[in-house]
């Protein structure tokens, strides 16, 4: 079957010596550059498809020449995007962290409603749990409960990974509802550095490093908090102890 493809990590594609791939200098999670940029997306797709007409195989790795259209970090040149809702996340008191997160979500909710109004609709959460349920469950995990009661048929590791993503997505959408939109990197930094929700997730993940189920341990240590934020959120986790193959991205 003739194939062409998009590569997000050029070094990997080069090592694997594959038939036809177009490397793009875009962020992970954005293989066609940016949302709501149909002309740009079409150009990326067309460039990848045109590799099908190349006859100089068996290895073709082309480079897309342009960066993705980027949302500026705020309106003023050089200014850093800052969420107008100010948080003072609690540090170590876990029940207080749950309260702080619920309070934080209440303050962000109007921005999320504006975001949904602007976008037309919001898809249901992938975990099928409400964010209030998730926050309370994370609080239970942070306090050492190994299998809190949950309205889900999925095992802990599944609702946990999807639920943490749901929470993060909801926060970022709320932030996108505000007048000054931030870049993906600014939003990521804001979420992981400045919110009580991130501290709650980090607190739960730290506790789960000692969970009796090894799959849950694996998830907690590798796929809940990005390694670059370990010093703040999971100081006890070892960011260097990673397997090299077959793990989650």
């Amino acid at each position, binding site marked *: *079957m*003739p*194939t*062409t*493809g*998009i590569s*997000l990590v050029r*070094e990997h594609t080069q*090592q*694997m*010596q594959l*038939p036809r*791939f177009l490397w793009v200098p*875009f*962020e*992970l*999670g*954005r*293989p*066609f550059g*940016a*949302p*709501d940029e*149909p002309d740009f*997306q079409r150009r*990326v*797709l*067309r460039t*990848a*498809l*045109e590799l*099908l*007409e190349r*006859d100089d*195989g*068996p*290895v073709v790795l082309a480079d897309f020449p342009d960066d993705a259209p*980027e949302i500026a970090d705020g309106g003023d040149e050089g200014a850093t995007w800052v969420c107008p809702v100010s948080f003072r996340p609690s540090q170590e008191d876990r029940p207080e962290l749950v309260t702080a997160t619920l309070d934080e979500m209440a303050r962000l909710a109007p921005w999320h409603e504006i975001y949904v109004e602007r*976008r037309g609709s919001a*898809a*249901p959460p*992938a975990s099928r749990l409400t964010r209030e349920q998730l926050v309370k469950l994370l609080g239970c995990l942070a306090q050492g409960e190994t299998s809190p009661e949950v309205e889900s048929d999925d095992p802990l590791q*599944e609702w946990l*990974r*999807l639920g*943490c993503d749901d929470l993060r*997505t909801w926060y970022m959408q709320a932030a996108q509802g505000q007048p000054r939109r931030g870049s993906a*990197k600014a*939003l990521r930094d804001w979420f992981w550095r400045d919110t009580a929700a991130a501290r709650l997730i980090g607190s739960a993940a730290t506790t789960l490093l000692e969970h009796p189920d090894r799959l849950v341990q694996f998830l907690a240590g590798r796929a*809940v908090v*990005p*390694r*670059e934020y*370990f010093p703040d959120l999971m100081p006890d986790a070892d*960011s260097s102890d990673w397997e*090299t*193959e077959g*793990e*989650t*991205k």
Partner: protein
Amino acid sequence: MVRLADIPEVERVHLLAKGCAPFDSRPWVEGTPLSKRRVAIVTSAGLHRVEDQAFSMVDLSYRVIPGSIRADDLTMTHSSVHFDRVGFREDVNLVFPIDRLRELESEGVIGSVADYHYSLMGAGWLPKQIEPTMRELARLLREDEVDAVCLVPV
């Protein structure tokens, strides 16, 4: 963004440490001009119809995505701390460019859009482990008379 040089060192080291050995063979298939090809998308973004079973962490199965799918009917159950779903939620074409493919069909750049596209759960498995699934997909794609596949990561 994002070249490896732009990402935090701890992530860069992690990515570069992954084993990405070449395959045993280097297949190379040519075909008719692009304007006559029937094109399908195969994505590792863990996409599926909202009512379908979610992907699990290490999942070797696939989900079929009808070519007529509406964006609101798709969800993503791949998860990673290294990307967010906000962009996908705003525009499914960011990871699954089905509207762009239809436009290229209208412009005559490609011959036609396949009736069925496919999604897998990226990461979590090695190429050898996913090979039986990919052989099954190749069979299904041939039955749909597809002669060009665009592989899309997330």
